[in-house]
């Protein structure tokens, strides 16, 4: 989809090239993450793809076509573009912001409206509530969602994203990342993603391109990068704690099937049932769901002693946090550590209970893998 050959950029007035003889091939539907320290040329490389910077030397082929032969405006209209600062237009409403590219392409109004609303739903912003607001009335995470919606609204086959989740807090970032991966699963865009955060790179990517001082050091799948770093620089970048980084690579739903755990109790289960399961379970806790299979809470041994009641619903207390089934094992681990318990309940997008994973499960995964 994107093929980069001998790409070089020397900025005027400088002798050292910002990007030096870079070769890279990105397959259709892949997320390729460019990662490296500040000033390594990753952003420069990305900006040469949509010709915000004109290459000094070398070629970029988009679907086999030399991109210098495509009109830059046309080229950019078909490449989604998201940057860290988002750059929403403060004098336009959210709707107008997202409709930028359709307006540039002179779409009929009906089509634009339909697409904008579809995209707002996709990124989890209710058009009814948000479309007439101005960017200043939105939180950082919401603005970033608008940025992504704006880039995707005309359904461009390629997206360029420069540290798109860099400016939000870690919790929002993890949520945005997971949402983005869910969207990507459906849309299968070819994405060039720039970040300096190796954990984000491992989590988001199909392939990782490690850059340093304008040169490409290694281009590999995250798993290969972790197991066979090309040189010391890459090894240092991925760090010593590789088994922990591996947890970024695996999603909760992937191991949920293998984990064999007793079914949760419904809230109207008898007290005896609760006691029995409490003894049998390796969690030392009983998960309680309501009739719709929504997570209701958990019952620990102390709950049984302290509270009185007939059925499970009377004893249970709420859990402080859960993970979604598309979260990574690393997310699950951090929730466990955060809550100070050895397990975490997994729910899906609609908060339906999916299962529970424990610290032991994570240990098993790491052991099998290495």
């Amino acid at each position, binding site marked *: 989809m994107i093929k980069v050959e001998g790409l070089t950029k020397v900025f005027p007035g400088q002798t050292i090239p910002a990007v030096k003889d870079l070769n890279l091939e990105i397959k259709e539907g892949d997320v390729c993450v460019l990662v490296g320290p500040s000033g390594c040329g990753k952003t420069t490389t990305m900006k040469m793809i949509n010709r*915000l910077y004109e290459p000094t030397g070398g070629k970029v082929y988009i679907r086999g076509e030399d991109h210098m032969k495509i009109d830059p405006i046309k080229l950019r*209209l078909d490449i989604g*573009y998201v*940057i860290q600062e988002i*750059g*929403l237009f403060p*004098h336009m409403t959210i709707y107008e912001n997202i409709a930028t590219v359709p307006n540039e392409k002179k779409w009929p109004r009906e089509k634009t409206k339909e697409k904008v609303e579809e995209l707002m739903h996709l990124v989890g912003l209710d058009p009814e509530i948000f479309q*007439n*607001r*101005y960017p200043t009335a939105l939180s950082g995470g919401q603005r970033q969602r608008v940025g992504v919606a704006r880039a995707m609204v005309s359904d461009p086959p390629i997206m360029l994203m420069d540290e798109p989740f860099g400016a939000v807090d870690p919790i929002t970032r993890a949520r945005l990342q997971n949402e983005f991966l869910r969207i990507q699963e459906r849309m299968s865009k070819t994405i060039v993603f720039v970040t300096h955060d190796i954990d984000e790179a491992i989590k988001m990517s199909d392939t990782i391109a490690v850059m340093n001082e304008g040169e490409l050091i290694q281009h590999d799948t995250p798993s290969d990068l972790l197991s066979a770093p090309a040189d010391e620089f890459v090894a240092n970048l991925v760090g010593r704690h590789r088994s922990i980084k591996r947890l970024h690579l695996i999603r909760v739903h992937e191991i949920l099937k293998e984990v064999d755990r007793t079914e949760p109790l419904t809230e109207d289960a008898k007290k005896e049932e609760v006691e029995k399961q409490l003894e049998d379970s390796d969690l030392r806790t009983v998960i309680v769901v309501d009739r719709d299979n929504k997570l209701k809470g958990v019952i620990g041994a102390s709950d049984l002693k302290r509270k009185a009641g007939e059925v499970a619903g009377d004893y249970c207390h709420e859990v402080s946090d859960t993970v979604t089934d598309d979260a990574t094992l690393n997310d699950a681990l951090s929730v466990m550590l955060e809550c100070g318990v050895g397990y975490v309940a997994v729910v899906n997008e609609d908060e339906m209970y999916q299962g529970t994973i424990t610290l032991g499960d994570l240990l098993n995964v790491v052991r099998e893998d290495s």
Partner: protein
Amino acid sequence: MDQLLRMIVDLLMTLGNGTLLSTQNEARGDLRETIDWIIRRSDRILDLMVEHLWLVLFTLVIAIVVSVIVGIFISYYETLAQPVLGVCQVLMVIPSIAMLAFMVTIFGIGFTSGVVALVLYSLLPIVRNTYTGIRELDPAILESAKGMGMTERRILFKIKLPLARPVIMAGVRTAAVMMIGIAALAAYVGAGGLGELIFQGIGRGHRPMIIAGAIGVSIIAVAFDYILYYGEKRFSVEGRTREGN
């Protein structure tokens, strides 16, 4: 603005001297005389006010068009910015009477001389504010606009100018108020307006005439500033953050 202030101060001093020399009764007589005169000649005063306003409005429109275009131009050609702003600066420090007299040598006595001089005076505030207004926009906004495939023309009209408008309008306000003051002097070259009252009054030693002219100019200046300020606030979207307002 300076000229206007200086003029008012001068007038007050003339008035003050007069009152000091005369007795209180005479001062009271002065005031009554002025009011009587204003009422008696209100038709002429109004006519001259309209003429003054027309001169200022006409000039302001030309000045805005010229200055905004120049401002946009130098925002694209950075190397020209300092020389152009320098020239505007020089134009503004030329004494107004000298400038008007100079215009007469080119355009002759009349409206045109006044208009050209006023336009030259108002270049600096509008050009400078247009230039800085555009230059100081958030680079991320412009980068994302360009990266999404907007043409430079569309970026200018849809992004740069709307966002720089509050700053440009501040320049326009400065220019307008300044212009109203200098326009009073333009009567000297036959461009009409309230300046006629003032100059005639000085010539004939007719105090009520001078006061009427000065008050008229002040009223127009304050009203203009007020209208431009609130007009801009109303149309501005910067403050609009929640839905519905």
